[in-house]
């Protein structure tokens, strides 16, 4: 585990995983706020409201819900210090505007807005993995936050 955020931090750690999103959120807005707050508590996002505004602006362009029960609210924002992934899971499902129904897994993808190239490639790699059914299944079935972190580490960061 590397806690020094200035040198190559992990994309995600156990504090950025919420396997019971239903406890704090029943709709898209509340879910996004919950995930942004987790990133803020971990010191990765400096300004919750700024980040919320940027994510909402992106959602307003086109909802980020995808078929297969996924929501990927995301933004490049000045409020983000390091590329960050926050994972939320909902049993009830949260509507992210996908045509086939609500999202059961939600990824908040946060990227700094000044960055180009290199350090964003890890986010690109994650986005690519998300397309794979097996990866999504594994995330939906993860037993605890550590499993989620390990999965992402294995599939994305150590490849």
């Amino acid at each position, binding site marked *: 585990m590397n806690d020094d955020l200035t040198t190559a931090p992990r994309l995600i750690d156990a504090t950025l995983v919420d396997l019971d999103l239903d406890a704090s959120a029943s709709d898209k807005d509340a879910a996004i706020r919950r995930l942004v707050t987790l990133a803020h508590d971990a010191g990765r996002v400096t300004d919750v409201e700024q980040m919320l505004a940027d994510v909402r602006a992106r959602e307003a362009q086109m909802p980020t819900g995808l078929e297969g029960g996924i929501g990927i609210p995301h933004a490049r924002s000045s409020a983000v210090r390091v590329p960050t992934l926050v994972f939320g899971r909902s049993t009830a499902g949260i509507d992210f505007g996908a045509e086939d129904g609500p999202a059961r897994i939600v990824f908040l993808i946060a990227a700094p807005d000044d960055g180009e190239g290199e350090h*964003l*490639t890890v986010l690109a790699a994650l986005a690519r993995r998300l*397309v794979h059914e097996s990866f999504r299944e594994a995330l939906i079935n993860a037993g605890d936050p550590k499993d989620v972190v390990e999965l992402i580490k294995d599939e994305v960061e150590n490849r």
Partner: protein
Amino acid sequence: MKFVAVTSCPTGIAHTYMAAEALEQAARDAGHEIQVETQGAGGLQEIPQATIDAADAVIFAADVEVRGRDRFAGKPTVTAPVKKAINGAAGLVAEAVEAAQSGTVSAPAAPGGGSRGLATKVDHDAGVGTRVRQWLMTGVSYMIPFVAAGGILIAFGFMLARFAGGSDGAIEVTKIPIADLIKHFDATSGMQWAALLFQVGVAAFGFLVPALAGFIAFAIADRPGIAPGFVGGALAGTVGAGFLGGIVAGFLGGFVALWVSRWRVPKAVSSIMPVVLIPLVATLITGGLMIVVLGRPLSWVTDKLTAGLDNMSGGSMIVLGVVLGLMMAFDMGGPVNKVAYTFATTGLTAAAIASHGTQLTVMAAVMAAGMTPPLGLALATVLRKDLFSEPERENGKAAWLLGASFITEGAIPFAAADPLRVIPSIMVGSGVTGGLVAAFGSELAAPHGGIWVTPLINGIPGYLLAIVVGTVVTSGLVVMAKSVRRTEILDAVDAPTGGVHAGHTVAA
């Protein structure tokens, strides 16, 4: 087969890469080779040109403009929103196979990046309304350069004439024929330069309706549509049908070309189908219909309208002003507009000018009413940017100058792109202006020139006030009408179909 693809999305950190992965997977599963260029935030790795050249087809899964689109020019192309590549990559790959087999070639890239895929073929799965809008927008986007170049040249011509030729300069400049400029162009004469600008501008305006019609037909039928569309558009001008006639010609040319291209012909003939046969037959049919079917009813309408105006001229001046205003804005250079304008200019006799007759008020009302459509739309693009597409906003900048110079055509791109909302709005604005000018009794003895002949106006304050009021009314109504459309734009973008994404290219 071998494919190349480009994926892109507004933020560039998620959908771009998901779409790339999905396309790679789907292509591999179907036994094809694919190389995807991800135009996202993770840095750009361009596909080598040799790979592009060797590819059988191109897939654009892009919600923002594809960078370097011209690298892919001339390839069979499939265009779709990025989400479609994520959720339906296999379908897109199948479409690409089909495009490669049928050899559906997209248009070469328009210079300047070809505003968000307008140049490419329209998606076949889209709803009828969406496709009609895409066809219109394609025509409009190619027409705008002619409107802007021609309109601004004419406006500059008037402007220069105003300073070089005095208060009558803007009238005199139109009387210098091209033959004069050819024989003895005098580089030291301001008026000669003004006439040069004016004449080149007029030449550019000559392409306005043909370009609109030609590229509507192109959007419908691809390259075979161009000749029938352009010719039909030119004939729309000849029979005095204006830009509405041009839209008719565009649709006619496009669908006739499409129909002819589906003829089953003997093998010996099929090789000359695209180059000779389709343009020949489609152009003849389209052009013939424009002359024979459209010509007569139009001249009948023109006669009736003229007679109607003659009858009205004995009655209330204000009512006449309103009616003339409505007519000026209805088709901007088409038959109705022309009747109103001709009615006003034929009143400008020496006797009328000497006696300050009501004909001078009619002229003032007509000119003012012809200025408010571009002005009002220009104002609307400033007030509510989000309601207009990028080419429309660009056109809005030129529309200020065009409107001020009484070049009503500056409003045509807006009206052609969205006739049902724009035309009623600008008609009301112009009607208000026409009525107000008549009420104030302003007088004008110049047939054109816009603000450049302001010194020739009697009752300037009322005249200008009428223009300002009409401009504000126009922009208010356009914004209201377009706000109703807003949901529709979003629908068009959300729908899992390809094609144009008007108003959806904000952040990169």
